[in-house]
């Protein structure tokens, strides 16, 4: 029987974020002996929130040094918890914090790691994971003989655990830190101003702008300012998250007209992100493979493109509107604004 450790870090509010509860739900689906391992300044409140999860024990590394998402301290804490738990399988949410350290922890423990896992299951009574290869182009189900096996579960793939709160008995794990662990200091987070933040992971809709927005239009001129207004108005009216094709963000490096609010962080696809949203609307983008691999986890897809034979038409979108996105989006914004004012 496997001893399954769920690794989680507590958030600024002292509790666990949704991805951690998803990892807990995934771990419970495998059976075995469940152990909870928590890291943060004070982990007791988080342990109490999940006291009813059926864990055989709760272990934690707590202290001010463990509030920072820093490789050296996180890796030391995770390795210590894994050893204290005697874990054979370790499941953690694939947050940026765990994504930074889990493979290093696997190396320390002499184990193996699988990241960006989208499902865990039992195959012939043993754990198996599902993950994608070649940037979401092919999906594999695999098992491993090596232990411990560390599994980083992508957020949004499993319904989060819900259950009784209570008072958890927490076993403290000591981690001796030296100056070498503190050569790095996290000094802050840099984020766009709230009104300029266009990446919204929880949005129901992903709006993707392609390079066509900055190209010459039917009148032989570019209309970048108009494009900027249409896109930003749409985002304001719908609360959608903004994505872009690589070609659009790379234009800045080529000295061409750019949409100033667009950065590499908005990029979707081969060298960008693969976000999860229920719906996606693509505009002025040709829908070729390197771009659309980033749409793997968008459920309903529509596209507006002047070319009815573009990549979207070849089984990648549910609906392709062969039309001028400038004209269509202007009307869309009018209708949305009218709807809002009612």
């Amino acid at each position, binding site marked *: 029987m496997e001893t399954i450790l769920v690794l989680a870090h507590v958030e600024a509010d002292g509790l666990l974020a949704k991805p951690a509860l998803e990892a807990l739900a995934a771990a419970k689906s495998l059976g075995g002996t469940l152990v909870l391992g928590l890291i943060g300044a004070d982990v007791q409140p988080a342990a109490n929130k999940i006291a009813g999860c059926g864990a055989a024990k709760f272990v934690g590394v707590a202290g001010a040094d463990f509030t920072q998402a*820093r490789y050296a301290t996180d890796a030391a804490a995770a390795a210590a918890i894994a050893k204290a738990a005697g874990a054979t399988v370790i499941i953690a949410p694939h947050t940026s914090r765990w*994504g930074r350290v889990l*493979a290093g922890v696997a190396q320390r423990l002499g184990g193996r790691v699988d990241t960006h896992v989208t499902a865990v299951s039992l195959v012939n009574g043993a754990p*198996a994971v599902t993950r994608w290869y070649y940037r979401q182009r092919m999906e594999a189900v695999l098992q491993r003989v090596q232990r411990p096996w560390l599994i980083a579960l992508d957020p949004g793939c499993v319904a989060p655990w819900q259950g009784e709160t209570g008072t958890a008995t927490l076993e403290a794990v000591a981690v001796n830190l030296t100056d070498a662990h503190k050569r790095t200091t996290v000094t802050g987070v840099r984020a766009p101003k709230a009104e300029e933040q266009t990446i919204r992971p929880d949005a129901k809709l992903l709006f993707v702008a392609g390079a066509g927005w900055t190209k010459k239009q039917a009148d032989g001129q570019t209309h970048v300012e108009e494009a900027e207004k249409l896109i930003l108005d749409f985002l304001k009216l719908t609360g959608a998250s903004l994505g872009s094709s690589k070609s659009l963000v790379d234009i800045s490096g080529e000295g061409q007209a750019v949409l100033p609010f667009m950065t590499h962080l908005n990029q979707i696809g081969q060298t960008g992100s693969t976000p999860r949203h229920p719906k996606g609307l693509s505009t002025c983008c040709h829908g070729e493979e390197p771009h659309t691999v980033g749409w793997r986890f968008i459920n309903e897809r529509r596209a507006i493109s002047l070319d009815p034979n573009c990549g979207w038409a070849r089984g990648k979108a549910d*609906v392709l509107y062969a039309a001028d996105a400038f004209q269509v989006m202007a009307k869309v914004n009018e209708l949305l604004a009218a709807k809002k004012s009612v």
Partner: protein
Amino acid sequence: MSIAYQIVVCGSIVPDPLQTLEPVSGHAGPALKNEMMLPAVLDPWVSHALFEAAHLAKSTPGSKVWLVSIAPKAKLQQVMMTIAQKAPFELVAVDGPSSGFTEAAEAAGTLADAIKAIPGLDMKRVLVFGGWESASRGAGATMQMVGERLGITDQFQGVDKLTVNADGSLEILERIEGGKHQVSKCAGPPAVLGWATGSLPEPPNNPQIGMANMRAIMPALQRAKPAKIAAEGVTFASVTLPKQLRETKIVKDAPPDEIAREIVAWVTG
């Protein structure tokens, strides 16, 4: 305080993103159909790491860049014809598979051994660069394991910017959730940086750099030792292409008003 960095960029080759990929089952596990025939490129995030490394080396006199790569050497040679024109570096080649279905831990062991064998490497000056995820395995695991094997515990992933401060410390911006960056200050080398897109454009081809690089690249390819990298202990139950091919409805010749109404109903529905 100025340090002459020794920047080791790790990275392999991947199929050109425009290629259609299809999995096949081989004797050693899954592979890509016609893998050796597919045109290849340097892994995109490795390219960014290489450009950032070259930029840093140029701005800090005495610095040097190595590119350590595990790939089938015939294909690596093809890719080098292009990439060698972009930035000055010394190639350390290992003749092995570049498949995404191989094991990160095994690749990391081979890479770490190749790095340790670089003559004159001084860990107090070493920065290990690479892509934060590959376009093949896409796990973001290899760089961390390489760092651990080299004893480097200052590691950063999804890096978009590196600034060397006046006191020699490093300010690093890493991607985190929600389109934000975590800002860290690291005392200095050694460190591992898995690069995302970085902040530099792709440099134009420079034939002079290409010729200078190729003089050393060809002997490096000839010296490339074979490495056995597989996926020991892994059983693939299945490897499949996505099943869902959508029945695309193409709406042509509809007025913008009508399309807009349909989109609004869908977005707000």
